[in-house]
């Protein structure tokens, strides 16, 4: 057999074995920003969900079949995400697509999945409004943060914890999702009788946040609410402290919040979020530790709740789809899905026919307690109904 024939046979064999493997497994495609500027808060989700799937397969998979996750890095670039979606749907014949990337990658992936009738699950990425009631039949989301709901919960907390009239500063990053949320918060603050004194929007890469912080501080807010990627939230806060601002700062609890609260050690720095911190020591958190350790996940355990939730949701959805899975069966199973999160959030994650976000969103708030020398919870689960 000459070289060319050998290569042709090997390629045919590889294709054949891939197709056979696909037929014997639940094939799930995933386009994710495993590298690129936002990888720090997105890649841990994928790694942990991958570890969960390995764990699931080691226990016999679903309905006796393994789950095959095909992860493709899109680096947060729309063109790569589109190519990934095309390949995963057209070549790998996935029953379900996941996306964990920046919002600019959504449109091409949504277009591809819609064309093929494949359900698209936003896992750790921003939930698009199409997942909220009335939901798009093919779009689903389990990500902790939710636009408009987060500002509602945050401003309710600020209102409850302020003896004096609230003079609110707002901080966002110059990306559409963050700016939209802070614009919404500005309007909401006015409705709640607070005074929105200043709004600062910082560009994504900025060498020094002090000029932005100076303007925010000069408006003399007693509270600041920031909702953007972590580095933008925390750099603005740190710059404000360095120029002498003494007010309280509330911000979104991204994956690294627990670790960062311990680094910052400032009682005036609060985070609001929907995932329990590992200080709770729940049995399921011990399980997350064990699964992550077995898979040698390189991120701190405190970053992994979101990814584990994705694993739980994926398992429930594929179980509901039965065997053999099809995109239509997966979408039908996901439209009536309820997952017990065992304390990782304030309640179960529930998707219905017209709500693919969750029916109820629960919030907690934490800060650093200097007297105790520990991160403490200052507000327990507060529920917000997610309505049409």
């Amino acid at each position, binding site marked *: 057999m000459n070289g060319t024939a050998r290569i042709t046979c090997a390629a045919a064999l590889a294709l054949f074995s891939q197709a056979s493997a696909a037929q014997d497994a639940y094939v799930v495609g995933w386009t994710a920003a495993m*590298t*690129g*500027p936002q*990888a*720090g808060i997105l*890649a841990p989700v994928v790694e942990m969900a991958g570890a969960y799937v390995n764990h699931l397969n080691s226990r016999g998979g679903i309905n006796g079949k393994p789950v095959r996750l095909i992860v493709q890095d899109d680096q947060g670039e729309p063109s790569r995400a589109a190519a990934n979606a095309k390949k995963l749907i057209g070549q790998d014949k996935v029953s379900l697509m996941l996306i964990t990337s920046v919002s600019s990658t959504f449109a091409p992936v949504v277009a591809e999945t819609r064309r093929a009738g494949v359900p698209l699950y936003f896992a750790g990425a921003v939930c698009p409004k199409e997942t909220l009631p009335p939901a798009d039949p093919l779009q689903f989301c389990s990500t902790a943060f939710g636009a408009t709901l987060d500002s509602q919960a945050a401003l309710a907390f600020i209102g409850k914890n302020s003896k004096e009239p609230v003079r609110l500063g707002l901080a966002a990053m*110059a990306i559409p999702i963050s700016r939209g949320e802070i614009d919404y918060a500005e309007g909401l603050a006015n409705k709640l009788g607070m005074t929105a004194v200043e709004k*600062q*929007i*910082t*560009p*994504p*890469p*900025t*060498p*020094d*946040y*002090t*000029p*932005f912080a*100076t*303007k925010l501080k000069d408006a003399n807010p007693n509270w600041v609410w920031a909702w953007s990627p*972590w*580095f933008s939230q925390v*750099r603005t806060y*740190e710059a404000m*402290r*360095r*120029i*002498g601002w003494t007010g309280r700062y509330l911000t979104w609890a991204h994956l*690294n919040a627990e670790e960062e609260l311990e*680094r910052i050690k400032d009682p005036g720095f609060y985070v609001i979020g929907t995932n329990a911190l590992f200080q709770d020591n729940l049995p399921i958190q011990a399980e997350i530790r064990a699964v992550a350790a077995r898979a040698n996940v*390189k*991120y*701190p355990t405190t970053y992994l709740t979101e990814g584990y939730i994705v694993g739980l949701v994926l398992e429930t959805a594929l179980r509901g789809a039965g065997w053999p899975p099809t995109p239509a069966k997966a979408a039908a199973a996901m439209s009536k899905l309820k997952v017990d999160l065992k304390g990782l959030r304030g309640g179960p994650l529930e998707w219905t026919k017209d709500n693919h976000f969750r029916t109820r969103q629960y919030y907690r708030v934490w800060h650093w307690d200097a007297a105790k020398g520990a991160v403490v919870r200052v507000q327990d689960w507060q529920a917000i109904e997610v309505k049409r």
Partner: protein
Amino acid sequence: MQLAVNIAVLASIYALICCGYVLIYRVSRVLSLAHGELMMLGAYGLYVTASLFSGQPLVALAAAGALALLVGIAVYVALIWRMTGESVLAAVLATIALGILLRGAMLVAFGTQTQYPLRDLGWQNVSLPLGSASVSAVGIALVASTALVYGALFAFLHGTRWGMRMRAAGQNPLLAAQRGIRLHGVYALAWGLATFTGGLAGMLIASDAGIESTLAVIGLKAFPAALVGGLDSLVGALVGSLVVASAEVLLIHYVDPLLSEVVPFFVLLAMLVVRPWGLFGTREELDRV
């Protein structure tokens, strides 16, 4: 007063970064588009040495500085030297490839988590009063480092034999070579010094804000300041940085913070229209570009 302090700190950041662009361009006519990545590598160098020399912050800093210098020399020896005889454009493209390679390598080696080298050194970025304003300790270090680096470079270029060789190689490499100056040695030194100053900027920015994947992009943000001042002039780099930083800080404060992203490029465009070779650049040099 706070605005003046903010301008001084931001201008220092830009000037420290620009220094590397100017040194390499002035001596070898190559525009290094890997400067942002080399800057980030310098920051990671400090992160590594801070762990290696735990409890000895000054040793860690010195080691990180030396490492940056050696990396610059190694980049020249391993890559840019091989471009000898090729067009300048080929060398510029090689630096783009180097940047992509370095970004990938750093991702593999250090992951995507934010690192805080200052914490690993055992130091804190405290706030210090300065009249009616406040400035961080890292802010003061930035201004002082910039002053020291530029002062030392002027002294080196005008008062030492190697400095004179470097200027000669920049002005007329053929004549310099005929006079016995070893051009490759001079170019390697220029790359070493440029990477050292860029690395220093990276270390200081990382000490203030941690090492993020956006650090490499900040390297490119300083580029307009170098062009405004004149790409072959160190004085120009200082003045260009001050002009761009002033425009940025004042517009953030008095007009709209969103303008901070576009203002360096707006100043650059205005300069290109009025004086394309920059405030202190040489007209002849730009014609060659």
